[in-house]
């Protein structure tokens, strides 16, 4: 790992044989997510070491859950994975691309194009319809204008809410809201879906609905990283990772 890092630091300049600018397609073997000795420290007295020397690989199509007690660094990890926060040291490779020190503009574009978020508190725009809320994710991710409506419809159909298109989120149940959020997260065809306590605000029946949805998405090939402190939720994942005091350990 460290040898590769050295390589990255001293990366040579553009190759003279540079061809036309083409979309970079990572090889099948490149993990969707790779953290290399990543550390996130919050300054303070004393400084908070939210993540310590984390190494993590998530392959395409994996369903990973990250469990840990409160304050263990789960949300910090998810923010790093979602390009919402930058590591203090180490690097984060998304589809093989080093993002740790990438310009903010590029990170925004990556976020829009490759990452889908599902939050504990849904984060739907209250004054916009269900349809508009899902369309919102297509605005920033470069989905061609002509495809937006169809894709949003497909996504809402996928989560079983095609009969609620013109509803306001405020009149939906918690489970329905979270399913709208899932539709929004997948509408732009992300490479990975990140969920932070997706069932934290839901009762058990609604939780089960959302988790079933995750299972289906996983079955369709989507990579999922779900953060939770609920063992029932993490049990649904194919792979479980325990985090405590900023240190990750694989759960067998």
């Amino acid at each position, binding site marked *: 790992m460290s*040898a*590769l890092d050295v*390589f*990255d630091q001293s990366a*040579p*300049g*553009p*190759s003279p*044989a*540079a061809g036309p*600018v*083409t*979309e970079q*397609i990572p*090889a*099948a*073997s490149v993990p969707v997510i*790779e953290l290399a000795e990543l550390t996130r420290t919050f300054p303070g007295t004393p400084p908070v070491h939210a993540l310590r020397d984390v190494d993590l690989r998530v*392959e*395409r*199509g994996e369903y990973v859950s990250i469990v840990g007690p409160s304050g263990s660094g789960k949300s910090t990890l998810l923010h790093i994975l979602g390009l*919402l926060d930058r590591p203090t040291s180490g*690097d984060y490779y998304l*589809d*093989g*691309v*080093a993002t740790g020190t*990438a310009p*903010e*503009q*590029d990170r*925004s*574009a*990556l*976020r*829009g*194009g490759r990452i889908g*978020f599902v939050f504990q*508190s*849904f*984060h*739907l*725009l209250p*004054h916009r319809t269900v349809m508009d809320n899902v369309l*919102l*994710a297509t*605005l*920033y*991710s*470069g989905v*061609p*204008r002509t495809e937006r409506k169809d*894709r949003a419809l*497909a*996504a809402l159909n996928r989560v079983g809410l095609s009969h609620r298109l013109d509803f306001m989120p405020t009149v939906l149940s918690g489970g329905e809201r979270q399913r709208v959020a899932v*539709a929004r997260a997948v509408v*732009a*065809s992300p*490479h990975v879906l990140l969920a932070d306590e997706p069932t934290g605000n839901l009762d058990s029946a609604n939780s089960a609905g959302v988790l079933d949805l995750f299972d289906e998405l996983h079955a369709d*090939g989507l990579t999922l990283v779900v953060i939770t402190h609920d063992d029932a939720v993490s049990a649904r994942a194919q792979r479980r990772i325990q985090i405590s005091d900023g240190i990750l350990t694989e759960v067998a």
Partner: protein
Amino acid sequence: MRGIRRSRPEPAPAPARDDAGQGWSPQGSVAVATDPEAEAVTGPVDAVHDDGQVPAEVASGRPRRGLRLRRPRLSLRRRKTPSIVPRGSVRDRFGIRDLVAEAAHGVGARPGRLVLTIIGTVLGVGSLVVTVGLAQTAAGQIARQFDAVAATQVVVEPATSRTSQGERATGRIPWDVEDRLNRIAGVEAAGAVAPVSIGEATITAVPVNDPSAPDVTPPKVLATSPGMLEAVGGRVVTGRYFDSGHDQRADRIVVLGARAATRLGVNRVDRQPSIFIGEHSYTVIGIIDDVNRRSDMLDSVILPIGTARADFDLSSIEQAHAKIAVGAGPVLADQAPLALEPNNPDTIEVQVPPAASGVRQNVQADINAIFLALGGVALLVGGLGIANITLLSVRERVGEIGLRRALGASKRNIGAQFLVESVVIGLLGGLIGSALGVFAVVAVSLAKEWTPILDTWIVIGAALLGGVIGLGAGTYPALKAAGIEPITALRGGT
């Protein structure tokens, strides 16, 4: 290695989500796990790192914007560029249409607040339009009512004093008043006039005394100097006015006012008709009309002053009239008495046109300045109002901003959205204010029976001014919004 199959070049503008099953599509049709090639991916992945000691950057293309492809280079040459940002689809990534649509939603979300937000701008733009509009309308009105005759007419009379016998002239206008006035700078024409008493004499067009003719009141007889017609702005209908030669020779000629001519049955002068005043015959040499300042001249038989003095013992001049250049009034008021009565200037009264029009314009200018200042203050307050409410809205919508950032919005996208929102709000205020201003100008004009005058460009400019104010007011909130950290924003929750 499985990756070899993927080493073929992709078409240049391939959007990220179409990149051969990398992304997950909501339709579930492109399923990586069902792809036998991809299935193997989860297998011996570590092998990549084991033999991968070659940096991928050398593959081809420049590392765009600091993004480095860490992928170890395999034995086969890869022709992929490390560009990770989906450049090919940038075209549809939050374009102008999206920006405007999102801003419109933001503006329309709270109609009640919108009204409060734009009220300052509405008042400011409205008061500017009203001020400018009323000034333009009033200027048009003044021009319409501007009485050129009144502004250039001077009347000179002997002063009078009240005594026990009644009012009595204390001064005297000299016979050569016309020459004396003409010498003063600013005088364009001057003339003198005096009523002539003809005693019991009658005025007739024929010498025969026809007893059967009805008794009609005879026309007045006036004596004037030759320049009088021009001094009072009259017009010769036919023939001519007398000149100083007639005056000096005391010729027996007359000019008739238009109504007097009708009364006497004279309508043409080419055959040298005569009228009789008493027993003397006077040749009619002209007929005049359009005398506004001394309309009694129209009803009169007009003699040269010299003739009147010779035939009717005219003893004094009643009035002198002068037509002056615009603005010469004050000079004339000073100089005319000295010119006519150097020893006793007090005995001559001069009525000059009031300089009030200038005063009125000055007052108007002051009022305009005050209104414009008030409008400016209202605009400032309006701008502050927009800034304040937009800032409040940014604070309230922190969660939305965080969400948009998480969905891929750049700082620039966020800033642009709030900036456009505030420009739209300002523009809306400007349009409404401008419309209300036009309405007010028209209403006032209707009430005063004026013709409303308002420059179209003022109206359009005022509306656009609202947009400019929105732009200015929205800059700080937009920068604030763009600077919001997505994590902090998302933690707040909505």
